[in-house]
């Protein structure tokens, strides 16, 4: 199909075959100084999806040709258009472009093989012409199209705004609401937030399979699911059943009436922070989903959806705070109970022996010892409660001075052994040994009395747990130096016993207030130790011994060289 050229070099022809077309296109891009392209989104797709055409884009970039690109920018090809913006000098938008052609200063190319293309595949038919009249004619076609087009930047902004504004719709038909609800959940990509207002709402959603579907999606495609719901025994049983796998991305937040959450007439579902569906409930007594609901409001409008997201998050915060308060209240109650038990016990002994002492002159000495012992226990508890109060009100004052830990440990052990013999009427036999009682000085900047209190407390604990072993009870203290990566040197004191070890369920809260498993003691000792050591810029920790029975408590203090 050759035209009649004005001279022998000018001709119009049709090229067939993908390779021929590609060679021609490369040549065209390499040789042209001005390139005007009018293309559909299928041309765009080729340019970014097929390797050979990607290479053409490269050529364009390296060459200094001036490129104008005219296309129909739509919501669907928006990302591609934004990409091509980086490769061309100027780009504009024209509604409804269906042709694909390029025209340079001296050549015209066009193809129709893109029109019916479904999947990206190479162009295998190309009309080429370097006939002056044709080129000129096509240039002016391009010019007039170009002049009637709109700025690409403007068009892109409009599309993005439109997309963000989204739409809001009222749905009156409950069946359609149900369909939308299920579709929303099925289409969800990353997150579903669901607020259920009543027990019956939970049951209805459960019956239509929403909860099970969400759980499966959380399991199989990692969907994040958060559900807020009131609960009763029946709901709790269902929750236990569907939460059995302990999924971290499928969380049900039960809320109590006491938590003051009063949303009880609407179900809210928010999907991927993009779409929301608010369903009005008109008759909560109905079992059937469609019978119970009235109208619903769907929205993909960003401000609306994000408001629901933030309402949802506030409710979760409120539930968490309420739970924290409850825990704190329980801890406080527990403390009052423990503290009152510990206070009344020595008082009971003191009162009883005071009553008895006059009538038992022979046992007077022993009774006075018992009174002293219990008075001391009372004093220690009062001290502990006072220290905790100071720690909590941040008024604990440390009198730091250069202290030799070595001497301090030796003194503490002596004191401790004396106290034990005094305080326990019966013979106490156990091994308490300091394994590094050498002459070396371990100087730290510390409050002597407070560190002594820490070591005594730790010894007390070790003793409590080895007491049952009688003469087989062993407590060893060791001391070591350690250099941190930062260069700071620390002294570490370890107190190791062979008792029954630390219960695994108390381990995580070992150093918190009121943690006690011994049924004796206030649960304040280790909390006080931790506070004192941390006030010295040190650390305290504990672990069960890897070899053999028992536990080792350790603390570190910065070494003063």
């Amino acid at each position, binding site marked *: 199909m050759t035209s009649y050229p004005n001279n022998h070099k000018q001709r119009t022809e049709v090229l067939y075959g993908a390779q021929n077309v590609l060679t021609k296109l490369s040549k065209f891009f390499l040789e042209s100084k001005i390139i005007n392209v009018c293309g559909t989104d299928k041309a765009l797709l080729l340019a970014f999806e097929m390797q050979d055409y990607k290479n053409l884009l490269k050529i364009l970039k390296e060459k200094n040709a001036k490129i104008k690109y005219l296309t129909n920018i739509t919501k669907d090809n928006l990302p591609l258009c934004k990409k091509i913006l980086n490769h061309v000098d100027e780009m504009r938008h024209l509604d409804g472009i269906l042709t694909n052609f390029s025209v340079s200063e001296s050549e015209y190319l066009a193809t129709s093989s893109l029109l019916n293309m479904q999947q990206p595949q190479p162009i295998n038919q190309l009309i080429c012409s370097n006939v002056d009249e044709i080129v000129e004619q096509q240039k002016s076609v391009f010019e007039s199209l170009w002049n009637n087009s709109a700025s690409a930047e403007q068009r892109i902004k409009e599309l993005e705004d439109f997309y963000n504004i989204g739409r809001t719709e009222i749905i009156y038909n409950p069946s359609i609401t149900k369909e939308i609800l299920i579709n929303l959940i099925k289409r969800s990509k990353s997150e579903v937030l669901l607020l259920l207002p009543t027990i019956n709402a939970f049951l209805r959603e459960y019956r239509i399979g929403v909860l099970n579907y969400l759980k499966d999606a959380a399991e199989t495609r990692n969907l994040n699911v958060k559900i807020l719901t009131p609960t009763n025994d029946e709901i709790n049983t269902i929750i236990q059943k569907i939460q059995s796998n302990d999924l971290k991305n499928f969380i049900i937040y039960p809320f109590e009436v006491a938590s003051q959450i009063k949303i009880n007439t609407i179900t809210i579902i928010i999907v991927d922070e993009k779409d929301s569906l608010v369903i009005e409930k008109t008759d909560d007594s109905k079992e059937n989903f469609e019978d119970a609901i009235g109208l619903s409001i769907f929205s993909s409008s960003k401000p609306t959806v994000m408001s629901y997201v933030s309402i949802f998050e506030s409710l979760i915060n409120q539930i968490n705070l309420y739970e924290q308060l409850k825990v704190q209240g329980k801890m406080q109650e527990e403390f009052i109970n423990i503290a009152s038990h*510990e206070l009344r*016990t020595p*008082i009971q002994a003191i009162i009883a022996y005071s009553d008895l002492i006059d*009538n038992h002159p022979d046992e007077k000495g022993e009774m006075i010892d018992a009174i002293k*012992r219990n008075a001391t226990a009372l004093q220690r508890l009062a001290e502990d409660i006072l220290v905790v109060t100071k720690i909590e009100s941040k008024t604990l004052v440390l009198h730091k001075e250069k202290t030799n830990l070595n001497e301090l440990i030796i003194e503490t052990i002596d004191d401790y052994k004396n106290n034990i013999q005094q305080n326990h009427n019966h013979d106490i036999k156990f091994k308490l040994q300091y394994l590094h009682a050498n002459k070396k000085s371990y100087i730290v900047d510390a409050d002597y009395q407070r560190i002594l209190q820490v070591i005594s407390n730790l010894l007390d604990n070790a003793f409590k747990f080895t007491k049952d072993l009688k003469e087989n009870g062993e407590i060893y203290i060791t001391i070591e130096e350690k250099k941190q990566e930062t260069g700071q040197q620390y002294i570490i004191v370890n107190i190791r016993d062979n008792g029954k070890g630390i219960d695994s369920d108390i381990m995580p809260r070992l150093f918190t207030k009121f943690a006690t498993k011994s049924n004796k003691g206030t649960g304040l000792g280790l909390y006080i130790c931790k506070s004192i050591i941390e006030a010295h810029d040190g650390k305290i920790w504990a672990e069960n011994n890897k070899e053999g029975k028992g536990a080792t408590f350790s603390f570190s203090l910065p070494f003063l060289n």
Partner: protein
Amino acid sequence: MSSIIKNEKTINHKNKRILIVDDEPDIALAFKIGLEDNGFIVDVFNDAQVALINFRKGKYDLLLLDIKMPKLNGMEFFLKMKEIDDKVKVCFITASETYFYENLIKKIFNLLSTRSLFRKPIKLKELISALNKEFNC
């Protein structure tokens, strides 16, 4: 003070046998001495498990049980003991806040003829007169 106590004892309840289970040796001993001064015959255990092993039907007229104890608390001890001897009188004594145990106590008091729950600290005089009242019931 002690004369009043002695009067009650001589009049009412000489030789009644009492078992004290309390994990605090000082308190258990003081109660034992105080009760013995008033004519009761008293055994003491500081470990509820050991007390249970040694418990025999009909050996005691009254049990005085501490509640908060390691291993086996007073309530648990009571429930196990009841299988051996369901006639013996039982009193509880505790230094804890009683609301902590209220539900348990209510449950247990349904099983008991007595309604005695004493709170530490208690004066020996008061304890003894309370026990005497138990025997008068």
